């Protein structure tokens, strides 16, 4: 009897002990993860600091170096170290708003030194303006590495650790800024706002980022006119059913191509996703159109689809477009059309068309790239003949086709080139040789895809 009285409490005590042990184990595992995570962040931080210091040192060396060889080596070191620094910074658990400008700074340093290195290699040494810009960049990098040094000292004193940010963030996003690392970097962000604007030939240069569309014309279009354009373009019956997508206050200021955007419900199947279309406010051009629908069994071939796409573009007023590439997926074909002027293919002026393989309807169009880049060009006469240009390419490169083309390179610059398509060691490549200077400008490797076809 006495014994029975203790059975239940006994079981409970055992259960309690088991739970306790289990709980403790869980706690230990959690601690373990936390440490691993913190270690990884710490490593990231130390790497960041080292990379920034390397950038700073190399920048000061490049200002001193006089020979072109040294300059190229040092500039490529800067490029690589700045790139790595940005990578590490982007992986630290600090919110984007507190690192955006520092990230931009590092990316631009990397991009800028790449542009300078290519310039030097092409035989134009750095001028005084570029050296001044480098000096400024060096001062900012100096400041950045000092700040990181300050954070580092706090880290070693054990005042805080990086992992804490993550936990705090969970509790209260606003309080995260109390953290030392963030405070330091916020201060840095203020300073970086004033870093110099960099004008050069690179994808991240400031003039490329703020570039405006060239192919729109200058006629202003109001919303009713735009509705009409959308109606005509899509063949919708009337403008009443067209719905306007709500736009923000800054559409006109920050969009690449400020546009009115509409959705047009399909009358035959109102439950389906509507047709979406964007019409530019200047020029009234259709920037893009998207008609997402399920595609039934394919009935037409890719060649027929390309023909339909071509016809469609002519109907819409794009006369001399030439198809260059097609990709088949989800029952439709995506076709890239490039503009052609005097037998020169202009790759910057690109329009993409999607054709459904069941009915041959056009289910999508994207002319944004064309509208951004298209303008009246005065194409120069090439100074090299095709066979002279061929001589600049590796002799055992098997050329299948050759033609003149204008290609974009870093930034918004355009190059008139001879385009050689061919094979080398079993791989397909396209090699571009500048038709004016005879230099190899760009090499593309064609990645084979059973569904994609180059059509030239």
């Amino acid at each position, binding site marked *: 009897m006495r014994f029975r*009285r203790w059975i239940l*409490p006994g079981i*409970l005590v055992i*259960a*309690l002990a088991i*739970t*306790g042990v289990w*709980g403790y184990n*869980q*706690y230990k*595992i*959690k601690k373990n*993860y936390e440490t*691993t*995570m913190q270690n990884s962040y710490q490593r990231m931080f130390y790497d960041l600091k080292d990379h920034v210091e390397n950038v700073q040192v190399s920048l000061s060396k490049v200002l001193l170096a006089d020979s072109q060889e040294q300059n190229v080596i040092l500039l490529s070191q800067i490029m690589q170290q700045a790139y790595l620094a940005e*990578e590490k910074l*982007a*992986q*630290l658990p*600090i*919110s*984007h*708003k507190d690192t955006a*400008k520092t*990230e*931009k700074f590092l*990316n*631009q340093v990397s*991009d800028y030194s790449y542009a300078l290195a290519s310039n030097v290699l092409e035989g134009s040494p750095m001028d005084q303006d570029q050296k001044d810009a480098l000096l400024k960049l060096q001062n900012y990098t100096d400041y950045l590495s000092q700040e990181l040094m300050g954070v580092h000292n706090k880290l070693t004193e054990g005042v805080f650790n990086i992992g804490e940010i993550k936990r705090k*963030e969970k509790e209260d*996003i*606003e309080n995260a800024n109390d953290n030392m690392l963030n405070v330091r970097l916020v201060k840095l962000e203020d300073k970086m706002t004033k870093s110099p604007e960099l004008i050069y030939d690179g*994808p991240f240069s400031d003039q490329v*980022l703020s570039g405006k569309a060239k192919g729109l014309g200058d006629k202003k279009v109001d919303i009713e006119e735009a509705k009409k354009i959308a109606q005509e373009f899509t063949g919708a019956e009337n403008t009443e059913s067209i719905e306007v*997508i*709500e*736009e*923000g206050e800054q*559409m006109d200021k*920050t*969009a690449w191509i400020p*546009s009115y955007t509409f*959705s047009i419900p399909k009358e035959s199947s109102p439950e389906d*996703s509507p047709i*979406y279309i964007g019409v530019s406010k200047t020029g009234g051009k259709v920037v*893009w159109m*998207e008609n997402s629908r399920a595609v039934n069994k394919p009935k037409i071939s890719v060649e027929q689809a390309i023909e339909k796409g071509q016809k469609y573009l002519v109907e819409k007023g794009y006369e001399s477009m030439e198809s260059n590439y097609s990709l088949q997926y989800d029952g439709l074909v*995506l076709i890239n059309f490039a503009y052609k002027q005097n037998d020169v293919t202009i790759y910057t002026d690109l329009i993409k068309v999607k054709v459904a393989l069941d009915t041959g309807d056009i289910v*999508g169009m*994207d002319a*944004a*790239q064309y509208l951004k880049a298209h303008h009246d060009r005065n194409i120069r006469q090439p100074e090299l003949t095709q066979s002279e240009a061929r001589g600049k390419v590796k002799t055992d490169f098997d050329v299948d086709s050759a033609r003149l083309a204008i290609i974009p390179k870093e930034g918004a610059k355009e190059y008139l080139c001879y385009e050689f398509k061919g094979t080398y*060691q*079993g791989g397909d490549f*396209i090699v571009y040789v500048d038709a004016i200077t005879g230099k190899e400008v760009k090499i*593309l*490797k*064609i*990645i084979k895809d059973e569904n*994609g076809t180059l059509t030239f």
Partner: protein
Amino acid sequence: MKKAVLILSMAMLVTLSATGYYLYINNQNQNNFSSTTEGINSVEVSNAEKNKDGVEESETVNATLAPKVLYWGSTGQDVKDVQWKLAQWDYYNGAVDGIYGTETYRAVRAFQSKNGLGVDGVVGPETAAALGLNFGPVDGGTQGAGTTAISRNDDIYLLARAVHAEARGEPYIGKVAVAAVILNRVENPSFPNTIASVIYQPLAFTAVADGQINLSPDADSLKAARDAINGWDPTYGCRYYWNPATSTSKWIWSRQVVIKYGKHWFGN
């Protein structure tokens, strides 16, 4: 007296279980988190440069996802995709229910024998590729100097997962817009330079932090990711988006608003 002891012990047990469960949950979170960090680290090897005009240039091999395999008894969205494709080509006339049963098995075998694949009734990367689905890398066989294992598909798949996690339930165009924002970030200097490092940037996307990124994307998300990679950008170059109903950050409201699709505002 007896009752008191009992109640007391019960209470203690309940408290302790609750604590244990709490720790367990915490632990799960940590698990999710560390898998995210892992993702971040593996990003460093991938540096393939993508441009939007259909032709690719790359210097290094991409980090890839482990291939998926579906067989009898598998369930889920992937099975649905397979069933849908097979139904489209008249191999399958059962329900698209996401359950890999007898009929699906027969249909897969029929498809494999018709298409010169190994007939085993299992959907691996090769059968999936033949179906036009992406289940991770296909073994490329021997590779010469000119050939590579680079493919855009893994980027599309990762992008589709991000779209699925962030914009499930949004209209189709809203999904394309979310994918376009990720790609616009890749091309902007204030952000990292690869698709993966943009997606896995700490504190950038809530659906990445809470592990929803690991869900399998549906067909719509894959389509939206493809459209965005092919150049469609309904946001006209935006780099941010937020949901006014759930957004907790004051900072995001200082962005320059451009357009609204579904529940999301897009801006710069």
